[in-house]
């Protein structure tokens, strides 16, 4: 009796896992992934931006600002690598892929610049990097409009 139950449970959970793990690649799914990715990227960019701005105003301690900006940079990096390793299903998706990859790498390097500037405590450089981050945020806003 229990063996049967266990067998069915194991089989059921295996099927469930298989269903979750292997999405059928199609254009819609790819666009959805692109949208999710740009939302995650906006979150990382905005988080780094807010932390650096707060630090610039003297409202925060430098290890705290640095920590938040570093977290944002790491998040951006992992978002970037997850999306770029994703296989586009067709030629139309490939165009979107190129656009996304450019935006993602811009955003990631903007956050890296920001982190470097924050760690060095160079206010001019921080402002400069913040401008880049702001630009990248605008790009992703536009991308999101397009994808929705």
């Amino acid at each position, binding site marked *: 009796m229990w063996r049967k139950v266990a067998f069915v449970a194991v089989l059921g959970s295996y099927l469930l896992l298989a269903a979750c793990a292997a999405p059928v690649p199609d254009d819609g799914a790819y666009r959805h992934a692109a949208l999710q990715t740009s939302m995650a990227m906006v979150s990382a960019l905005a988080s780094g931006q807010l932390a650096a701005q707060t630090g610039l105003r003297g*409202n*925060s301690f430098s290890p705290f600002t640095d920590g*938040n900006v570093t977290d944002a940079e790491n998040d951006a990096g992992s978002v970037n690598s997850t999306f770029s390793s994703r296989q586009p299903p067709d030629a139309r998706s490939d165009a979107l892929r190129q656009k996304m990859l450019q935006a993602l790498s811009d955003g990631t390097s903007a956050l890296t610049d920001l982190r470097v500037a924050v760690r060095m405590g160079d206010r001019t450089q921080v402002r400069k990097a913040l401008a880049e981050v702001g630009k990248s945020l605008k790009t992703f806003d536009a991308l999101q409009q397009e994808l929705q």
Partner: protein
Amino acid sequence: MKAVLSMTLGVMTAIGGFVDIGNLVTSGITGARFGMTLTWAVVVGTLGMALFAEMAGRVTAVTRKPIFHVVRERLGVRVSLVNAAASTLLNLVTLAAEIGGVSLVLQMVTGISYLIWVPLAGLAAWLVIWRMPFQWMENVFGLLGLGMVVFVVALFRLPTDWHAMWHQVISPAVPAGQPAPTWWFYAVTLIGACIVPYQVIFFSSGGREEGWTSKSITEMRVNAFIGFPLGGLLSLAIMAAAVPVLQPRSIGVSHLGQVALPVAAALGKAGLVFVFVSFFAATFAAAAESALSSGYAVAQYMGWSWGKRHPPGAAARFHLVCLASVIAATAFILTTVDPVTVTIFAVVLGAAAVPLTYFPILIVANDARLMGKRVNRRWSNAVGTFFLLIMVVVSVVSVPLLIITKAGQ
């Protein structure tokens, strides 16, 4: 006068002790993502916690039996073994999350990687278990945890749209553009963050450590019915502070530092100091308490002598379990698993496990022969059974939601 003073102290420590890494993380995430639409989940969780703790505290005060004595005597060896094993495992996961939380707070303050702090945090938590008198442990960290009031202060300095927030509180709905399963998943995490099994184990065993009798019931009730709801308000304040700062910028919270950002934006360095101290106190006290709770659960189940009121030599096996838990949890966090993810798992599994300890307490609180005139009244049974029903539903849906939403992504 002295009684009032001790009661105030009790309430204040209950407020500070209510909030731990689970509340910090889940409140921050939900505030940034869903605004105040999940306020109801915190309210349900807090009321449930108050009810559950009061019942467990009353049973302990009258029968002098903390929760796992009751569980073993009522459920028999076999069923209660499942309960004890599940609770201990859960305490371990929670302990790991708290140690991770302590280390993350230290990283925020110093800028040195949290992994360096993990072993030190574990060692310090164990030293508190080993040598610090029980009352001291409860009071010092409980009071320092009250520093989270800065989140309330911050709300008044931020461009808070009180009207819109209040609207979200009273008419909750899934915000536009957010998937419903994720919203429900985070509702479960918020409930799980408020009703943490280790806190009930600790509350009732702590009552025994402090020698509660039937006379202590009033004081215990004040702690549960005033202290815990005020603690719930603190976690709502953390949630609310994220709304005007993080939500408009579409920042999704995935690190503990982001939870503190609104206070930095509103109150600057002074506010941050309060955040650091109170976050540290809350997570550190919770680390010690959850490790103690593992010891309490195992020792009470097995019938070993337990508790900080004995010198460690006289409760050797209890201290061995505590020590082993701290070592295991520290090792687990040192595998570089993300403490925030561990926290999410801990609160969800915690929500799933609540009926295991809640049910036997509800039953014993109904035994007139044991409880005498302190037996459950009709109203507390009505509320208690209703709440049991909620918790069973939460318990059933929690793990499927965890899988469907991939832990809330």
